[in-house]
């Protein structure tokens, strides 16, 4: 019998006898018969591990766009960065993988210290002093930021740039059904948020993205000024890899930073588990969502770490809590700490620089192609949007036949025509270049795209 249960028949009998019972069913005798399953679950019989592995090849072989086989130029918030064997090995150590939330600090210094190091790194990447121990992903992190802004201002209006990732905006809207926040979107113009077009009075938060989801590096001073002018918090969703060379959220004056930590050691993973990065100014400490690890001493005076400010958390504050997060993404946070340790100061800078170099090299080549046009004239980092004069989704499938995942169709990403883009959104392709892409791969991209659009 293929399972993980240690019980031998003799032991089951012995245990039942100890309980004065003669069958396992007796343990469930107090469950009303009316609701009990009579036939057992309508599921197949158990299979051995190798049989299940064989079954799973059905799934793996039907996934054609694996980055292990197709050169990945897709991004949209999820990036194909280098993850070395050493990081996988360390993050995969079973003490990290099979631990629970560090409720007993005396036997959880491993995870606690790793989170402490993660928190330190997040504050450095964000330029904001108060981190948490992770959130589910950037999108739900944004929701927490809005809730924090609401808590700080008691206001309900959330002014959000349309440059914020469409999925993040969608998630914010979903959760606003519960909190009652009013979400006001600000359209883009030439790829840049048109802050002037919005009434931000009485706003709890001004929310921007850096770069924005089309890859554009907007000057954040405008957003900051708007926040200040309206006594709103400035929430900045920022790319943490960009922080290797670009201004941090703190440098732009943000009150709250949210970001997606996937680029730090987490694979593409079909979208999860990822890592919601979060940091804020010290004014907001008591409103921090999720767990936070702090330094303290043990009874013998040794430096120790512990989850702290627990009074904010849902299990203690219950209906008065401002966040319900319990399980978070610790393992990804630990992974990010390890990956950042591997990169180090030079490495992160190097990765960021190479992203920018690769993206610009490809951009320059692409816009030489007849019929390919930039969506924006603004600066960008490792991602940019181009109009390709053809249906982007169709072109992507054609390119896939040549082993290239050519990017992300903006129409597919946004679901509905994006109000921020004028003209045919179906023609807009979002293209990413990470430090992993070689010149040869980029040149081939150009060739494959040319072929796909008949140029």
């Amino acid at each position, binding site marked *: 019998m293929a399972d993980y*249960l240690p*019980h031998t028949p003799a032991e089951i009998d012995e*245990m039942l006898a100890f309980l004065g019972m003669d069958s396992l069913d007796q*343990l469930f005798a*107090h469950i*009303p018969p009316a*609701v009990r399953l009579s036939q057992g*679950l309508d*599921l197949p019989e*158990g299979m051995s591990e190798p049989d299940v*592995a064989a079954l799973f090849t059905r*799934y793996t072989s039907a996934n054609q*766009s694996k980055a292990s086989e*197709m050169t990945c130029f897709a991004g949209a918030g*999820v990036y194909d960065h280098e993850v070395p064997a050493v990081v996988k090995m360390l993050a995969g*150590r079973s003490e990290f*993988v*099979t*631990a*629970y939330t560090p409720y*007993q600090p005396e*036997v*959880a210094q491993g995870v606690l*210290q*790793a989170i402490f190091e993660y928190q330190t790194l997040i504050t450095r990447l964000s330029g904001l002093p108060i981190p948490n121990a992770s959130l*589910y*992903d950037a999108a*739900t992190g944004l929701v927490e930021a809005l809730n924090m802004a609401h808590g700080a201002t008691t206001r309900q209006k959330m002014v959000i740039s349309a440059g914020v990732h469409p999925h993040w905006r969608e*998630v914010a*809207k979903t*959760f606003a*059904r*519960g909190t009652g926040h009013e979400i006001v979107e600000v359209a883009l113009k030439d790829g840049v948020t048109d802050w002037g077009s919005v009434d931000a009075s009485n706003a709890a938060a001004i929310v921007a993205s850096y770069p924005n989801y089309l890859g554009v590096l907007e000057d954040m001073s405008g957003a900051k000024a708007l926040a200040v002018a309206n006594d709103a918090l400035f929430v900045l969703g920022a790319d943490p890899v960009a*922080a290797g*060379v670009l*201004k941090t959220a703190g440098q732009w004056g943000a009150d709250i930073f949210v970001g997606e930590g996937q680029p730090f050691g987490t694979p593409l*993973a*079909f979208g*999860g*588990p*990822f890592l919601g990065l979060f940091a804020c100014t010290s004014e907001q400490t008591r409103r921090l969502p999720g767990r936070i690890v702090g330094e*303290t001493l*043990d009874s013998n005076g040794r430096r120790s770490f512990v989850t702290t400010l627990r009074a904010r*958390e849902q*299990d203690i504050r*219950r209906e008065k809590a401002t*966040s*319900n*997060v319990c*399980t978070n*993404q*610790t*393992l990804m946070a630990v992974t990010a700490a390890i990956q950042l340790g591997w990169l*180090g100061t*030079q490495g992160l800078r190097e990765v960021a620089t190479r992203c920018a170099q*690769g993206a610009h*090299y490809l951009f320059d080549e692409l816009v030489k192609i007849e019929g390919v046009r930039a969506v924006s004239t603004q600066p960008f980092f490792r991602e940019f949007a181009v109009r390709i004069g053809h249906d982007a989704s169709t072109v992507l499938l054609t390119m896939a036949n040549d082993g290239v995942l050519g990017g992300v169709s903006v129409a597919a990403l946004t*679901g509905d025509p994006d109000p921020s883009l004028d003209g045919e959104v179906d023609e807009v392709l979002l293209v990413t270049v990470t430090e992993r*892409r*070689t010149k040869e791969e980029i040149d081939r991209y150009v060739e494959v795209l040319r072929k796909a659009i008949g140029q």
Partner: protein
Amino acid sequence: MTSRALSGGRAASAPLLGHETEPTIFEMSVPGRSAYQLRTTNVPATALAELIPAAHLNGDVLDIAEVSERDLVAHFTRLSHRQFSVDLGMYPLGSCTMKYNPKFCDAVANDPGLNSVHPASPAELTQGWLELLVTLEETLCAVTGMAAATLQPAAGAAGELTGLLLMRAYHSANGDPRRRILIPDSAHGTNPASVTLGGYEVTTIPSNDRGLVDLEKLKASLGPDVAGIMLTNPNTLGLFEEEITEIAAAVHEVGGLLYYDGANLNAILGVVRPGDMGFDIVHMNLHKTFATPHGGGGPGAGPVAVSQRLVDFLPGPKATRVEDGTHAWVKPSRSIGRVHGWHGNAMVLARALAYIDVHGGDGLTRVAKYAVLNANWLRHRLRATLPAAYDRVCMHECVLTATPLKNAYGVRGLDVAKALLEEGFHSPTVYFPLIVEEALMFEPTETESLQTLEALAEAIERIAQRAIDDPDGLHRAPQTTPVSRVDEARAARHLIPTEDAASR
């Protein structure tokens, strides 16, 4: 030279060798050292200043730790030696279901055929993933007796909030938004927190003297403004709500919906299904019931399954089987929208499906039965030492109380929990649920053997004896752990969340 010696390869912090603290990676950092290696790309190395306007550049202010690969490995390996985990020993943490996490499921998830797929790839190129998700959804529905599910929520709490937004959408669609959600006083803190974030008010229902929802008081709290009730069954005392049919009828009667907090679903797999009990919405904690590893606090996954009337409101887009046998992303007609940046914690979902496939319907049923058997055996075995708060047949966990020890010797539940660490066991959940004094909530799980349970019982007996012989020693426990009892109050009084705050 002292700070110099700190950094580097000394392993005295590994409990194998000593009990010193491990330096932080920042203390180990030496300017100019590095570990990273990147591929040669031959991309033109244009100066950044030529690519990006100066206003955007940070002027190289960013400082990350600088260590060699060798020291990186030593540091995190040593940290791992300072960390308890399921793989080291029993983790009877009630409500958290720290069962064995099959390594096979990790291997499945590490396959690049799943792991290296970009979530924004066209559906045509990710048919394997879509089919996997559809299969998992169907499987979870079979387990819970529901009609459809969303796999997006990233953990139980996210599932709860999703469920409440579904309730809200449902009632709103009926033109009757409603205001209150009922929650028993034994509920986990995420339940009321989620209710608030869902825009509802909490009405707390007291438990009766059997540890169950007081049906009469529940009925008294019902009214047309009640959107629904959140229950976990078995409840957080590990007790089955025997009057569940009556509860369901009463709530449905006033037009309310029933939400099932699936944290304890492992107790009833194959025995009874939330759908059959009358629940309308069910979240599952895949990291509990289906043994995906907790990762030191996450990732989890909290799919939400619903009855037929809520299907159209589910978050989307959802992986869906379409007529021609292929799979596509489809947004339910009245979807509340996305609750996750992408498709949920996909790798956790894949692990859970692998776990379910290995067990099958028969194996899952055994999981529940043996989990319940273990909990009852332990409860009964410890009767004389730590009595159960409600001493009758429990489900997968039992809440014991240290009140007798406290009254007699001044030894609290926390002392027992801490002393257990020295005995080679993780502590049980302490002081939860709130309605039991000096609660110690033990969930042995089905993967622990009779021998391990006996070892745990004997360890607790030794601690009980220590309570008589040396209660003060117990207040100071643990001492053999990497650090001794930690000053939690100090941490909260003066927050030091980062190395930079520490060195300030």
